């Protein structure tokens, strides 16, 4: 049987923090397996941070809407925002950051999509009317990463 909840938050850095804590608490309340919680929290934080940073960078009052559906086999988290579409309307590839160079050239960002891809078993993105819908899928039966 699937458990579902939905909530929405202001797309600011503080809003993102409240959002991630509230979603994680609600997932714990509906018995998200403890050994999957870390992966979910990291991927969720990266996705929400991307929206705060990019989707609403020019606006002050964007909202992020999150819906979670948890079943014994799978957790689906659908995150929507009304910011501009992803570049080319596609999910970024999320290559691992290049850390092969000298210390001064080590990257300080650009890790997010790689982390999201590493921690989810599937992603789905679509543009509906004026909103972005990003779904993160987590296999509940898998061992944590």
């Amino acid at each position, binding site marked *: 049987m699937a458990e579902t909840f939905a909530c929405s938050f202001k797309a600011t850095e503080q809003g*993102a923090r409240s959002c991630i804590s509230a979603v994680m608490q609600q997932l714990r309340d509906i018995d998200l397996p403890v050994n999957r919680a*870390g992966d979910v*929290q990291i991927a969720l934080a990266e996705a929400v941070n991307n929206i705060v940073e990019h989707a609403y960078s020019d606006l002050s009052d964007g909202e992020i809407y999150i819906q979670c559906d948890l079943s014994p086999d799978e957790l689906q988290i659908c995150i929507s925002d009304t910011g501009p579409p992803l570049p080319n309307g596609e999910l970024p590839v999320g290559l691992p950051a290049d850390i092969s160079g000298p210390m001064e050239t080590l990257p300080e960002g650009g*890790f997010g999509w790689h*982390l999201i891809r590493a921690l989810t078993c599937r992603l789905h993105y679509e543009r509906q009317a004026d909103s972005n819908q990003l779904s993160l899928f987590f296999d509940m039966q898998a061992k944590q990463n």
Partner: protein
Amino acid sequence: MSLTSTEANGAQIVTVNADRIDAAMAIQFKEDMRSETESGPDRVILDLSLVQFIDSSGLGAIVAAMKQLGRDRRLDLAGPTPMVEKVFRLTRMDTIFNLYASLNDAVSANNT
């Protein structure tokens, strides 16, 4: 969030007194690390035992803190909790930093 420093075995130990280093505080963390480590021993150990969570912004701020020390000084990490260790491992940043399971391990490790 605050940073407090002590010294042991010739190294500066900077303790992060916060349960997370995330996007909301990454810039502040980087600036606070800059002042905290402006001058001091060549070896700085960042004690992360209280930090339950970092996101990629927090990771970036730790990388920035290391770069701020410059080539002649080193930033080692102590006591990463499971989610923090996971973020370092998935980004392969655990090959860039020395991660020690505990502060004691970090302090007593020989410099190489």
